[in-house]
């Protein structure tokens, strides 16, 4: 069990966790992982939920034959029940330098949100994989076995690496080494990657993952509050931009940002993914209980 020091290092406090207790992560369709759990599975199983009848074929379990139906119809029918399985929820946190800018820092919200989502998943007896992304999948940690695994997760989250540039395509491609069953993959990033994110997300989809893209932007990225002549340096060292702020330029930036977020939304729509834009100054409980509910990632 985790000691006191590790407890303190979990990104969320007990009160927040208590409010998260009633929530569960939602997937668009059932997934078959083969591991028993609490989620409805697409395959038939041995739960108490009646699902269907089917004709008997040799080799079937006699115990599931509906003898009453046989008495009426003189045909053998098998009663089929729904299966309940768990899934693997993969939460990927962008740890590149760009996440450590903005007020408040986007990384802080990303960490807290990852902790909240991991907690919700573990509570629902799902398996959790937490991964840190920069220009590759830097590290990851598995967690399973209910709420008790949160200390493990918390430990990982507090020791997230912080370095390097963003290469979402490559780091998401790396996920294939880790994930081997269908599940839900949640990507927490600002998606401000020069190389784009599309290839990586498609690769994740290939792993039979449902994808949720949670874009975290700081308020000064959504609504820049600068005046005068500036030379803007990229935090990841990809170059500088000279800007003379004028209403026209601010307008152009807003237009560009709108186009960018719209592109992500359209991409998400095309790939059956969930998308939400989260300002980094939003309260964690608001995000989970209101925003993610609206996009039906949480129920």
């Amino acid at each position: 069990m985790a000691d006191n020091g590790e407890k303190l290092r979990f990104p969320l406090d007990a009160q927040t966790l208590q409010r998260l207790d009633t929530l569960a992560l939602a997937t668009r369709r059932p997934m078959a992982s083969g591991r028993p759990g609490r989620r409805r599975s697409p395959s038939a199983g041995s739960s108490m939920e009646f699902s269907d009848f089917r004709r008997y074929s040799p080799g079937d379990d006699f115990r599931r034959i509906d003898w009453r139906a046989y008495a009426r119809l003189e045909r053998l029918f098998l009663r089929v029940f729904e299966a309940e399985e768990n899934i693997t929820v993969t939460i990927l946190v962008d740890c590149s330098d760009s996440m450590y800018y903005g007020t408040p820092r986007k990384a802080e919200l990303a960490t807290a949100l990852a902790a909240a989502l991991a907690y919700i998943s573990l509570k629902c007896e799902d398996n959790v994989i937490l991964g840190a992304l920069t220009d590759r999948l830097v590290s990851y940690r598995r967690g399973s076995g209910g709420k008790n695994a949160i200390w493990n997760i918390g430990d990982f989250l507090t020791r997230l690496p912080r370095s390097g540039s963003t290469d979402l395509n490559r780091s998401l491609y790396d996920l294939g080494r880790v994930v081997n069953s269908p599940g839900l993959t949640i990507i927490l990033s600002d998606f401000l990657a020069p190389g784009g994110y599309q290839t990586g997300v498609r690769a994740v989809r290939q792993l039979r993952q449902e994808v949720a893209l949670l874009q975290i932007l700081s308020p000064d990225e959504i609504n820049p509050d600068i005046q005068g002549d500036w030379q803007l340096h990229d935090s990841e060292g990809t170059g500088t931009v000279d800007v003379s702020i004028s209403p026209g330029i601010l307008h152009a930036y807003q237009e560009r940002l709108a186009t960018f977020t719209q592109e992500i939304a359209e991409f998400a729509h095309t790939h059956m993914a969930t998308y939400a834009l989260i300002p980094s100054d939003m309260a964690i409980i608001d995000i989970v209980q209101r925003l993610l509910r609206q996009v039906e990632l949480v129920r």
Partner: protein
Amino acid sequence: MNLLVPTALAFSLIIPIILLLYFMRPKRQQRTIASTLLWQQALQDMQASRPWQRLRITPLLILQILAAIIIVLVLARPAIFANSSISGDTIIILQASASMQATDVAPSRFESARADIADIIDNLGPNDHLSLITMARTPQVLIADSNDQAQLRAALQRARVTNQDADLEQALSLANSLMNGRTSMQVLVVGDGHVSTTDKAMLVPFAVRYLRIGTDAPNAALLTLSSRTISNKLVAFAQVANYSAQQRAIPVELYADGKLVSVQTVTLGPQGTGAIQWNTVPPNTRFLHAQIITQDAMTIDHQAWTIVGGSQQGRVLLVTKDNSFLRAAFALQPNVSLSETTPQQYVNTGNYDLTIFDGYVPPTLPDGSLFFVNPPQGSYLFGTSGPVTHVSRVGPGEDTLNLLDSVDLSTIHTLQTSHPLKPAPWEQSIISAPETPLLIAGENNNRRVAVLGFDLHDSDLGLQPSFPILVHNLADWFLPQPVPGDGQVTAGSAVTVQTWPGADRVTITSPDSRVSTVGPPFPVQPYNMTDQVGIYRVTQSVHGQLLDGAFTVNLFDPTQSQLAPAKTLPILRSSDFTPNGNAVSRQLREIWPWIAALLLLVLCAEWWLFSRGYHIQKAPARQLPGREIGGARRIQGGIPSQKSTFTAGIEGMLHERYSLARKQFLKATKQARKRFGQVTRRSR
């Protein structure tokens, strides 16, 4: 338009420098942000590695170039030819004499002259200097050598018209001293040319121009007013002049002490003068006031005042056995109220201003002035009188008191004996013989004392025509009038009133009841507020008694009353001045102050634009435009909605209009080009 400094146009190099500054990229502040991805995409068209950027025509640039052009223009000192009535350093002499009050030029000649000078001040060039002098009895410098139009106008407002005559010679000599040797200065006299020194043409070392004011307006004037007692009847005389080209009937009213005596009308031919006589003036009248009751351009000469007899009378006691010479001579004096007694009946009552002792001296002398005639042998206040001795020849002594004015002593033939007089040190010998002084006079201890050493009956002096004159002089010396003569004072002249011995307070009340105290201290100060015409009352307090005297101020100046303006000034080098004529020099007048004012406006506009732009940048930027995509589970979570401010709204509207207009312009240009291309192709 001419440029005084065309080389200053070289400063127009500043315009390319301004453009260069706009081409150059500004020095930027450094800032690290999360990602420049969006900025790069947004600012693709602004990114260039060159230090130059595409020139954007902004209002600020236009204003700055405009300001630069204006500054260069100002430096080049543009000037235009302006019609100027005067140029260089000028002394303007504004006539402020009585005739300038005439209203033949509305509102008056003086105001009209003042308006003309104000015009000259308004058109004053930047290098012109003006001095203003008013010309009346004494010229007065209002302002010297000033280029400040406000100061000049204020000085001009200080000028006041007077009831005085105008002394051109003094004014020109003052102007000459103001010139201080600068012969390039010119003198401009503004007025009607009625100056007091018209008899001889003056030669001055500078050019004098004359701006004539006024018209040949008809005027009637009183030239004299006097009174006389003829066979115990008081008769008043007035002389009236008709300064007009037509024959006129001029009615004149006469008031005796404020009561109308009668109105007499005199009919005078053109430029004629005539006299009026009133025979029914009540006796004991003190002041006479005549008034012409016609409407003329000038009214100040329609009034005249005079004092009947002496303005103040002294009580004189003649103590004599029977001296008819003295009695007759003193009784004739207008300022004497004579009483007579004999030495036997004489009692010292102390109520007399002058006591005359003839052949008798009382043991105690009364207060007041004393005149001893033929004092018996003895020692007195004035010295000693010895026994009668022989006198050989009569002649004048030291007459500093002017008692022998118009007195001819050479006709005295019979004077053989006299008491030899030994005068006190404060007395002077007025008439003397080689043996002894015959008439001594002096002032001591606030009393005037005169002694005649012989009996009038022993000489033929009492029979001479000089005797009444001598008595008159003595009476005037003993009991002086405030103003000698007939009490007439010219307006504007300083009056030093003569006080009686023992006067301890003298005040003068002007016609508008302003009281001025001229003494103490004694001798009295000159009184110079005599500009108003009318009666000035002089009140003296002598030994506790108030003594009323008076003097009058009348115009009585034919030069001022004749309104037709003088054709020329009595100066040899005088020329006429025409404000807008051809003789006026065309003068280069710089116009840079107006251009500088325009520059200020441009700079204000630039500042306003700059501050306006600054506020728009500070205002919240407009909201991220939301574009909903159907089906996508996308939400713009929590982008804070910000209310666009009023200015931002206006800015947006202007921007839309601007882009619309720009599109239309581009379209029109494209079409024009296309058409032009078609035309050229066809022509080929």
